[in-house]
C-alpha cells in the first residue's frame, strides 16, 4: 500500500501531503525533512527508488516538483511510478498544463483529485477520463450551490431593504 504521498518543490517546500498510515504531527515533519533532503540531493540519472526505514520511496520529478510516494518493499516500484504519472496527467488535464502555482493556490482541488485517485493508499480509478468527469460534476454541484446561496442572499438583501 501507499503509506503517504508528498509533493515537494525544488526548494524543499511542501506542496501537498497525504498520509494513509498513522504518523504523528512530529513524525510527519521529520519524515518530510529527512526525505526532501535525500531526494533533492539525488542526481537526475539515478534510479527513482530510495530504500528508507524498511520502506521504499518512489519519486519522480516533474518540472519544479517532486512527486513522492512511500510504498511497502514488496510493492511494484515501476507501477508506483506509473501511478504517479497517472495522477500528474489527471492534474494536467484538469488545470490545463499544470504548474506549481496552480497547485499552491488550488491546493484543495489537488486534494480532491487525489481523493478520486487513491483511497486507503490503494489505486481507485484507472481511467483518467472517469476521474475528470466526476471532478467536473462535483465542481458543477459547487457552482450551483454558490449561485443558489448568492441568489438567496440577494433575495434576503432585497427583502430587508
Amino acid at each position, binding site marked *: 500500500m501507499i503509506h503517504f504521498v508528498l509533493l515537494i518543490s525544488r526548494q524543499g517546500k511542501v506542496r501537498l501531503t497525504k498520509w494513509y498510515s498513522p504518523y504523528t504531527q512530529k513524525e510527519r515533519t521529520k519524515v518530510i525533512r529527512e526525505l526532501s533532503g535525500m531526494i533533492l540531493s539525488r542526481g537526475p540519472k539515478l534510479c527513482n527508488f530510495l530504500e528508507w526505514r524498511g520502506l521504499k520511496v518512489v519519486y519522480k520529478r516533474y518540472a519544479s516538483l517532486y512527486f513522492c510516494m512511500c510504498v511497502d518493499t514488496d510493492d511494484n516500484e515501476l507501477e508506483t511510478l506509473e501511478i504517479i504519472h497517472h495522477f500528474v496527467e489527471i492534474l494536467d488535464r484538469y488545470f490545463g498544463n499544470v504548474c506549481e502555482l496552480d497547485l499552491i493556490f488550488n491546493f484543495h482541488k489537488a486534494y480532491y483529485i487525489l481523493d478520486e485517485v487513491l483511497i486507503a493508499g490503494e*489505486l*481507485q480509478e484507472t481511467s483518467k477520463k472517469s476521474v475528470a468527469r466526476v471532478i467536473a460534476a462535483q465542481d458543477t454541484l459547487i457552482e450551483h450551490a454558490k449561485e443558489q446561496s448568492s441568489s438567496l442572499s440577494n433575495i434576503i438583501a432585497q427583502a430587508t431593504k
Partner: protein
Amino acid sequence: MGSRLRDMIRSIRACKTAAEERSVVAKECALLRNAFKDNDQDYRHRNVAKLMFIHMLGYPTHFGQMECIKLIAAGSFPEKRIGYLGLMLLLDERQEVLMLVTNSLKNDLGHTNQFIVGLGLCALGNICTAEMARDLAPEVEKLLQSNNSYIRKKAALCSVRIVRKVPDLVEYLTVPATGLLTDKHHGVLVAGVKLCTELCQSNELALEHFRKHVSTMVRVLKNLVVSGYAPEYDVSGITDPFLQIRLLRLLRLLGNGDADVSDAMSDVLAQVATNTESNKNAGNAILYECVQTIMAVEAIGGLRVLAINILGRFLANRDNNIRYVALNTLVKVVSVDTQAVQRHRTTIVECVKDSDISIRRRALELVCALVNENNVKVLTKELVEYLKVSDPDFKGDLTARIAGLVQKFAPNKQWYIDQMILLMVEAGKYVTNEVIRSLVVVISNANDLQGYVVRTLYRVFQAWDGQESLGQVTVWCIGEYGEFLINSANELEGEDPLTVAESDAVDVVESVLKDSRVTPTTVAFALTALLKLSTRLPTCADRIKNLILEHKGSLVLELQQRAIEFGSILTKHSELKATLLERMPVLDEATYSAKNEMGVDGQQTAAAVASESDANGHLKQPNGIGKQPAATANLMDLLSFTDEQPSTSSNSSGNALLDLLGNGPLDGSNSLTSSAKHSAGGADMLLDLLSLDGPAPPTSAPTSTAAAPLAGLLDVDPLGNIPLGNLSLSGGTPKGPPAVVDPFANLTSTAMLASVPSPDPAPGFPTIVAMQTSGLKISFDFTKPADSPKTTIIKAFYSNLSSNPYTDFVFQAAVPKFMQLQLEPATSGILPANSTNSVTQLIRLTNNMHGQKALVMKLRVSYKANGNNVLEQGQVNNFPAGL
C-alpha cells in the same frame, strides 16, 4: 469576516523571511480563532480551507478540528466536501475527536447523492479507526452491492481498510468481494481485485474460497492482454496495466502452494510474459510483476526459464529503474534457482560499482547471496578491487560484507589471512574490532602459518598509511612472532625469502608508536609488542627500553601505566622476563565463535566494563584529556578473549593483565585464584614477583609510607583479585589496606622526576604559598627554562598540618584560555600526618601572553581525611611578577 483564501496565500508567499511568515500566519490564526469562537457559519468552509494551508506549512492547527466536524454535520455538499477534506488532513486516526463523526458518516453513507456517499467512503477509507470500522462495516457492505459503480469502487477500497483494521470481518466481506470480480467497470475491478488480495492475505479460508474463482481472474486478464486499443484505459499502448498488475498479484497468492491452480494460470502467465511490450515503463511494470508471480507459483520449468530470461534482459537494460527491480527480484530468485542467477554474475558484480546507492545496495546483497565455496575467490577479488575506488560512505558496508564472506567461505586459512590483510590495507579504518579479533584468533591457531603471516604483514606494512587495523594486527603479530621475521622459520613453498634485521622489526613497532594518526589503543598494542620483543630480539633490548620509557609521561593513563610497568619489568626483573613474556596461549576458536554468536550481548558486556572502569576512576585524569573508556574496553577484550563475567571491572582488568603477560590457562569465569593456582608457571611467578599474598611488609621500598599510583596494580588482595581499576593519575590510592606498599614506588617516583628538567628554584622568583587552610598547605617553587620565557615550571609542595593522614589526595588546577597547563603526576596520593613538603608535583605552565598578562590559577584539592571526603578550592593571585 477576513480575507479570501487566495489573498491569504498571496500574503504568506510575499513574506521574505521566516520570521515575517510566522507573524503573518500568527495573525491569520488569531483571526481564524476569533471566527471559530463567534461560530461564523457563512465563512466556515473558507476558514477551514485557510487552516489547511497553514497546516501544510507546518503550523499547529488543532484548534480547527471541531470546525471540520461542524462542516461535515452541515447539510450542503460544498460544506461537507471541505469538511471531510479538513478531517482527513488535520486529524489522524488517533484523535478521539474522530469518534464524533461516526454518526455523520453513517448518515452520509446512506445519502441519496452519490458524491456525498463518495465523500463519506473516502474519509472512512483514509482515516477510520478499528471501532469506526466495526460500527460502519454493515453500511459499507451494503454499498459494495450498490448499482452505482462510483460507489462500489470506493466501498471496495474502504473495505480494504476495514479488513486491515478488523481482520475478523473477512468472512463477512468475502462473498460481496467475489461479486466484484465479474464487474464490467475497471475502477471497480481494480478495487475489487485489491480487496480480494487483502482478504486472501489475512485469512486462509478466504484464500481457499478465491482459489475456486481463479478461472474468472484468468479470463479477465486474458481479455486485457488480447484486447485491442482501449482509449479509456490505455497507458502507452497497454490496456490498463494497473489492473493487470493487480490480477497478477492476486494470482500469485492463489497459485503459491497449489499446483492445480498454478496450472490453470500458466497459459495466461506465458501470454503476459511473451506479449507485453517492454519498451515502456508500464510494460516493464507488468513484466516485473509477472516474473515475480511465475517464480512464486508452482510453475513448470519452461515458464521459469522465460522469467529468468526477462530478468536477464532487465539487468542489461540501461534504465537504472529497470536494473534496480531486476536486482531486487533476483535476490528473491536466488533461493529458487541459483544456477540461473549465477549466469548473470558478471553483470551483477558490475552493478555493485554503479553510481547509484540504491542499485549498489541491492547488487551487494545479491552478490553476497551468490557467493559459495567455489566462487568466493573470484568474487572477493572483484569486491576488493572495487573497494579501492568506492566512495567513502559505501566502504563501511562493503568492508563488512567482504569480511563476512571471507570468514564464511574461506577455503583455507592462508587465503583467509591473505584476504583480511588485503582488506586492512584497502579499507583499514572500516575494519571492525570483531573482525580483527577473529583474525587474531585464526592466526594464533595456525601454527605453521605464523611465520608467513608475520613476514607478509612486515612486507605490507612498508606501505602503511595509518590504517588502524593493519597497525594493530601487524604490531601484535610482530610482538608475538617477531623471531620468525629474523630467522625465516616455517617458510612456505613459493614464499619470497626476506631478510630482516632485528632493528627493522623494532622500526615497524616504533613507526606505529610514533604515528600521530593512531589511537591510544594501537599505541598500547605497540607498547605490549615492544615488551615482548625485548626477549625475542635481545640485541635491541636497550632501544626497546628507551622507547617504552618515552611513554612514561603520556597523558593517557593507560599508556603511562603500561610504560611504567613495562619499564620496571625490563629494568628490575630481567630474570622473570622470559617467563612473563612467553607467547600467548593459543586462543580457543570454539570459545571465541560462541562468544561471537552472543553478538550484541558481548558488546553490552564490553560497554558495561567500560563504564564501570570509568566509575572506578580507572581512566580519570585531572585535566580531562582523552577519556577513552570504550577503547580500553576493546583493548581488554582483545587481550583477554576469556568470557569473564564483568561483575567487577577490577576482576576483568586483572584477567587482562594475566593474559597480557601471557600466563595461566584462560579458563574463563572461574575465579582468578583458581586459575592462578592451576597454572604452574606464570601466575605463581607473578605472585612471586609481587610477593604480595596479602598485606605484606614492604621489602624494597625505602619510603615506607608513600604509596605510588602503581600500588593498585601490585596490590593483590587475599582473594587474588588484582584491582587494576582504581588508579588515577595524580595519586588516587587504592582501597586496599594502607600498609600494602608498592615495591616500585621508589622507582616510579624517581623516574617521573627524572622525566622533567630538574626544577631548582630560580633565584629571581620567591616561593609562594598558593593555598593554606587549617590542615593543608600548598606552596609553589618556580623555575623558568632559559630558552622559553613563556614557560614556567612550578613545583608544588604539599604539607599536611593535621594529625590525620590524607589519602586519595588529588590536586587539580585551572587556568585562563591564554595559558596552557600540564600536570605531571604527584609523587604520591597520600600525605602522611604532620608532614611538611612530603609530596610534590610538577606543573608546567605556558603563558601565551607572556609580558602582557600575569599568571592566575584556580586550585581544587580533594582528599580523604579520617574517612571524610574533603574538597577545598582557591585562587592563586600572588604569583611573582615576570612569570
